[in-house]
């Protein structure tokens, strides 16, 4: 396929309660705004709780965005937890329902998920590009906590879609956890000990979260996933399918 004229992505994020899906959508959305792009986001409002399905929707673009509300027909689907697919913890079944042709699917998983043949076929018919990113693994290894999985997913999205920039994500994470008005380096001396300690803890939190985002972004870029929109580009499922065909395995 050819690259869309003005880059314009409707991203549906699905995960489970407690993973920070909504926070991730805020960070992604604000990152694009920091980069002087346009973005709107809205979470799915219902009775959210830990381990229950959560969806959040982000529109990002280099051009004006008019639409509001949840995204029914996304061109990017991001799955934060494999249970969304394997346990059906999702508002949309199958997980790619509504995906537009030539879309992108990004799944948080260390290994390629084996989808059932119907799902494989439907995704192939839509020319969907499927990427598996080990965001939780990177979160533990780089950030020291699985809680940073969501920032790993933001990094991977940005790496694959080419927006927002790494600098904007860093700024967006900072604004999310510390707020706009505070500069990390200056002014800290004036704060009293308690605030300083709290602030130092927050600064560390911001740094670790950003490290995970950077690591996931690099993971995607090292594999050349940012070229997904080029003609004939093969994603991880394509390669696996070819390999399976060559060896006669299924």
């Amino acid at each position, binding site marked *: 396929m050819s690259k869309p004229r003005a880059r314009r992505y409707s991203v549906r994020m699905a995960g489970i309660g407690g993973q920070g899906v909504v926070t991730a959508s805020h960070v992604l*959305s604000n990152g694009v*705004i920091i980069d002087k792009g346009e973005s*709107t*986001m*809205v*979470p799915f*409002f219902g009775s959210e709780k830990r381990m229950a399905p959560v969806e959040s929707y982000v529109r990002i673009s280099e051009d004006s*965005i*008019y*639409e*509001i*509300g*949840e995204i*029914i*027909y996304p061109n990017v689907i991001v799955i934060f937890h494999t249970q969304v697919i394997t346990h059906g913890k999702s508002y949309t079944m199958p997980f790619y329902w509504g995906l537009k042709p030539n879309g992108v699917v990004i799944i948080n998983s260390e290994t390629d998920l084996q989808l059932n043949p119907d799902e494989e076929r439907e995704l192939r018919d839509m020319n969907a590009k499927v990427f598996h990113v080990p965001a939780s693994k990177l979160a533990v290894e780089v950030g020291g906590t699985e809680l940073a999985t969501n920032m790993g997913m933001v990094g991977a999205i940005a790496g694959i879609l080419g927006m927002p920039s790494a600098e904007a994500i860093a700024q967006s994470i900072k604004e999310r956890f510390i707020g706009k008005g505070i500069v990390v380096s200056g002014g800290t001396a004036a704060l009293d000990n308690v605030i300083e300690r709290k602030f130092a803890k927050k600064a560390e939190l911001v740094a670790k979260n950003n490290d995970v985002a950077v690591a996931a972004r690099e993971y995607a870029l090292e594999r050349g996933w940012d070229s997904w929109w080029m003609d004939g580009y093969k994603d991880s499922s394509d390669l696996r399918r070819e390999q399976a065909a060559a060896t006669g395995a299924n």
Partner: protein
Amino acid sequence: MIHVLMSSDYLMLEAPREKEFITGSEAAKEAIRRANVDIAIAYPITPQSETMQQVGYLYAEGYIKDYYRGEEEIGVMSAVAGASRAGVRVLTATAGPGLMRGMEAIVSWPGARLPSVLLVMCRVVNTPLAIQPDNVEISYLLNAGGIVLHGENQQDFYDFPLAGFMTGEKPEVTLPVAVAVDGFFVTHARGWVNMPSEDLKLPPRNCYHEAVPMMDNENPPIRISRDAPIQKSNFISYQMHASWQQEIWAAQERAKKWLDRWLGGLIEIVNPKAKTMIVASGAAVSQSREAVRQGEEQGLDIGLIKVKSLRPFPGKELDEALDHADRIIVPEFNYIGWLSKEVKSAIKRSDRVVAGPRVFGGMTMPTELILETITGIKK
């Protein structure tokens, strides 16, 4: 230092503005900050609560003289009537079922000629109940007698309440104003809002300069509810009612010129010469703008009319702007299709109106659905 302005025109039209990326609730807060509100009264209900919480911060900062949580919506809406009768500038907000509960008091405001602003963050009112932005509740407001504005986005949720206060308090208007937006999509999502400096403030309400004098020690309450000749069945009573109701709806007509001035027209027209025209209000306008853009990419010529004011309804303006159109699509976020009925009754050759598409229970409207209705092709 807060500057209380001598003229509302400066704040509404002339003051230089700067762009901020904020939620609809925050946009409403910024409007209230500049609106010189005397008292805010509300009872919490999702998705209105966040906005009134923001207004609470304004009270804490000293921008509002008094603020309290009423016992429930009938109490709140009755208290709003009391505050407005006492001559102060009053704000309230509610959503869905809260609006329904407060309706008994709300429909009494226009007849009592009580200026105020009621923010309505639309949500489902019928069964099965939900908190999503289905806007059927607006249809109940349309016959109440007050002015009803329907905002599309965060920018409107800043501009419309200010225009509401100023218009409602004009002596030839003297009516309450409801500013509705579709909940969550506007209130909880962020968008660009152009606003003047926060140290500017509207002039205060001039309650001695309205159609009905405010109630104080020298002016008893206007006597319309307890006088025997009016309440009993007799021809004096019927005559009184006829002139009184007529006057409310005439006051609405007189509000048009002020809304025109401060909202930049009762309607906004995009691509006016297109043979296929969409007419929409609220969040359906945003979805339609995107449908127009996508249509353009596919070589379709589609126009759009945004209806900003539902009461007064811009019937004449719509009739003129739609005269050339072959087909008129009216997408709505409710089952009843109140806007398509309004449009049909206002224009000539109403069989041109395609009454739909519609989404229910607070679902957003996919632009694909609008384009499918236009092309007749399912994707």
